[in-house]
């Protein structure tokens, strides 16, 4: 039996070991620059997150190999923004990771997050720490909206930069496509209760109404629940032309399967949350067939400009990248370019300076010249539309093969 005295000794021993073990003095190497990568590497979105991570890492590995910035080495540090409890991204974990990045003095910039819910939790902390992050996939417009500056950048300066455009364009441009190209008259809207999904659905809804599409109703899915038949039956009875889903794959996959059974003839569309391999592996065919999805970037993976990148990526990682791997790669290029700029101007490579440099940068990348507006948003507003069309000649879980590129979404 542990007596109180023994317990006190135990506590002291434990404390001593922790003090020794946890804080091994890290030899401060000024020439090593840490880049924090915050993505949901486990859970429902793990595969997409991995592709994004790999895109970013490729940029820095190439820079190190080519000695792009003489005297400096980039070291990427990955943080998992997902938890087992949520089964997918967890904003609280993202906030914790943001604190960790801010407290690591060697971190000069960050890449991520993937999910806007994480972004909203991270930005106040990043802003106070004056650490810039470039997100290759987070599309919720609120984070860079100056109206919410007090909430998302209390420090004043923008720290959230994007190499994708926002849902201010993604959802609405899908509405335009539905109205003009698909001739949809009525629509029912669902979201998955997350920040990204709700934002997408809201933006889509506003534009749909402007385009003259009648919104028959709006409901919410619980990502953890298994059964959506009740709400789908309700939708069936209302008989809309189309169904729009704002949200990520955890609910999206189940929605795809069940809506195929209950409302097979309805046109179905989602945002970049549905443009994922999970829809193909978890949803499978025929459930995934015919789904429309958008991404908040130009479609580049079949572009000639991306050929070198594709080759290098496949050689290093073995699997095929997705469009957001390229935006992640481009984000890396922006950071590297910013650091180079600072050195050329003889300024010290600190986080604040890096942030300023990123803000003012004009970087040649695969998706074209990347520049940011005063809020940190990408100046290019291209949204691309895809549709799932089964191609039996290629692997059925290959996003490249099964998501057929339709074109750039109509901007009005």
């Amino acid at each position, binding site marked *: 039996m542990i007596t109180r005295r023994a317990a006190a000794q135990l506590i*002291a021993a434990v404390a001593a070991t922790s003090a020794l073990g946890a804080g091994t003095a890290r030899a401060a190497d000024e020439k090593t620059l840490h880049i924090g990568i915050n993505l949901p590497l486990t859970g429902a979105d793990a595969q997409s997150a991995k592709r994004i991570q790999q895109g970013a890492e490729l940029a820095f590995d190439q820079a190190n190999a080519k000695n792009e910035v003489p005297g400096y080495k980039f070291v990427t540090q990955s943080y998992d923004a997902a938890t087992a409890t*949520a089964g997918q991204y*967890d904003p609280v974990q993202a906030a914790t990771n943001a604190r*960790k990045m801010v407290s690591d003095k060697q971190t000069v910039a960050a890449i991520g997050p993937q999910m806007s*819910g994480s972004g909203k939790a991270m930005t*106040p902390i990043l802003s106070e720490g004056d650490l810039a992050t470039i997100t290759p996939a987070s599309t919720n417009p609120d984070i860079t909206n100056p109206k919410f500056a007090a909430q998302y950048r209390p420090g004043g300066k923008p720290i959230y930069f994007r190499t994708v455009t926002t849902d201010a364009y993604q959802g609405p441009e899908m509405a335009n496509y539905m109205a003009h190209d698909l001739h949809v008259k009525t629509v029912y809207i669902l979201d998955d209760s*997350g920040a990204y999904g709700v934002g997408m659905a809201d933006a889509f809804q506003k534009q749909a109404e402007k385009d003259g599409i009648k919104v028959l109703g709006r409901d919410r899915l619980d990502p953890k629940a298994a059964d959506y038949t009740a709400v789908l039956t309700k939708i069936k009875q209302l008989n809309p032309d189309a169904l729009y889903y704002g949200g990520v794959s955890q609910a999206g996959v189940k929605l795809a399967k069940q809506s195929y059974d209950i409302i097979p003839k309805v046109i179905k569309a989602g945002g970049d949350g549905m443009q994922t391999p999970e829809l193909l592996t978890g949803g499978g065919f025929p459930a995934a067939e015919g789904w429309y999805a958008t991404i908040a970037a130009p479609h580049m993976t079949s572009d000639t400009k991306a050929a070198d990148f594709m080759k290098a990526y496949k050689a290093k990682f073995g699997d095929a990248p997705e469009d957001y791997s390229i935006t992640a790669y481009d984000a890396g290029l922006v950071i590297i370019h910013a650091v180079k700029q600072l050195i050329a101007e003889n300024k010290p490579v600190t986080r604040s300076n890096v942030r300023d440099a990123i803000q003012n940068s004009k970087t040649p990348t695969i998706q074209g010249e990347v520049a940011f507006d005063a809020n940190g948003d990408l100046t290019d507003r291209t949204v691309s539309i895809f549709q799932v069309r089964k191609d039996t000649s290629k692997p059925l879980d290959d996003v490249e093969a099964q998501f057929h590129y339709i074109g750039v979404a109509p901007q009005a």
Partner: protein
Amino acid sequence: MSELVARSPVGRMCRAYPEAWRQPTILLLLAAAALLFPIYHSNDADIDALANAFAFATLALGLNIVVGFAGLLDLGYAAFFAIGAYTYGVLNSFQLHPAWSDSWNFAQTLGLVAQMPGETGGEVVHFTLSFWIALPLAALVSAFFGVLFGFPTLRLRGDYLAIVTLGFGEIVPIIFRNWDSLTNGAAGLNGIAAPRFWGHSFGVDATPYYYVAVALVALLLFVSARLRDSRIGRAWMAIREDEIAAGAMGVNRVHYKLLAFATGAAFAGMTGVFYVAKLQTATPDMFVFNVSIMILVMVVFGGMGSIWGVVVGAMVLQLLQSWWLQDLTGWLNALGNLVGSNWLSHINLVPSIELIFGIILVVMMLYRREGLIPASSAPTGLTFEQQNATVNLAEQDIRLPGIGGTASSGAIALRVKGVTVRFGGLIALNAIDLEVPQGSVVAVIGPNGSGKSTLFNVMTGLVPAGGGSIRFHGDEILGLPDHAILKKGIARTFQNIRLFPTLSIMQNLLIGQHARLRTGALAAVLHPKWSRREEAAAQDWVREILKVFGNRLTPRIDQAVSGLSYANRRRTEIARALASRPKLLLLDEPTAGMNPAETLELAGQIKKLKELGLTVLLIEHKLDVVTTLADTVYVLDHGEVIAKGRPDEVRRDEEVLRAYLGRNTQAALAGGAEVGAHVA
């Protein structure tokens, strides 16, 4: 290993250290280590992790009050954590922004709100409740919900109580997730302001949060310890050990169960404010079922009821997640790179924390239910001398003030009239009439199943009556709850002995005085002089009472009652009833299971009590005890009084003999005379 340490020079030094100074010194060292930590170890992430660990320690302390002290298994504790967190979050973020009007000016001068330009033009209110005000505010709000959620569980036992609390624990985060306008739903509240101290914001630096956490842990440890060692803590433990006995000894179970829920909830509410202020974000997923279970694991792991145990348990498990699993992962990965194992170099142990929780629960339940640092309970061992001491029942000059009534003999202390009790279709008592004169001993006898214990139960409020009246010194007590009846002056023992097993004799008897002491929760924590005097007087009273039993119980006063002999446990139960300063003592088969010598001794002790002015109502089977002690005897059979009178009268009553011994009256009469000859 500990032997080696003990014999080393360090060990010898430790033992030479004065006993009385040991605990304060250890506490001082711990406090110093905690306060100096951020100074000699300036890694911000580590300080943050330790602050989180402290936050979970306070959560564990709160749950410990509910589960460990009061024995109420709460599987939805995180609900209170959530309530406290959102109270601060909603009142300190941009979520609520009603339109500005002049009625907000006063709040603005108090610093509770600020003015802000709205989205669509005009001015709106921006809530800026101070962290320091939010702490006690959230404690109150959470305590309120603690009472609200505790209320439906009051009459439920064990598992059902757990399930209802689980239900509430699930409902709260769902409501937060769905109530978009208040909480921003699943996306969560963001941009929650950091605390400010003397005009400086805490910002993103972990150190100020760390010190707040240390202060919080110290405060709640202090409160827990004070409560534990007070009348409140004893009442909780009584409820945990034996609810029925607790009620019979005057503990108002409703009051104390709700107090336990409220106090535990308050701890969680305060922690919620701290946690969310540090994270600057709050989402419903932070408070799901897993979190409740995690806190339960910490309490189980550390030791239910042990305040240091749960603190250590919480910190160990938190640091496991934040530090050690990551370090271990790093080492394994390095090892993997070294030996070229792909699996090892990519393994990540951090997500396995929940698996570890599950394993801990199972292992602890199977092999060490008392936890890492068991709650300090009374020892059950006796020294050799104590076990072999000769019994000494020397007549000490015992005066027991406050026991017995002051009314003149002859007045009726207890008048039972027409009391009927039904259990479904069975009539257990049928219009019973019974009178107990002041200062007398009345015995109730009868065959098994005649309703004797039921009579006691209806007198003490354990069982409802279907009609009739019971007047005690003129006051109607039928229908009163058990603790109120004790307060009026009726104390009882139970047929199958209901003591509080893990508590000592002293603690059992102190609980017996529960209704006579006045120290409440506030006094328990603040410990004013009058409360300390009251406690000392109570302990003196306990020693007085134990003298009734000579030196049978006195040497064992600090032993857990579960280790006592059967006869001693009976005596302890009677002593506990006496401790409540009763005017009427109800003894339910006090000599059951005792041998003739012990029976005689106890009968003598009861007689002595009667001489001191106590009125006694006694259920007995041993007719010789009845004959010696009782002034009046009532005989029950099938729920009815079939005879009443002096012992010798009743013994010869035909009805009685038929009821006890069967139809052959002649043989019974002859047998009765035989028995009489032997006993007298």
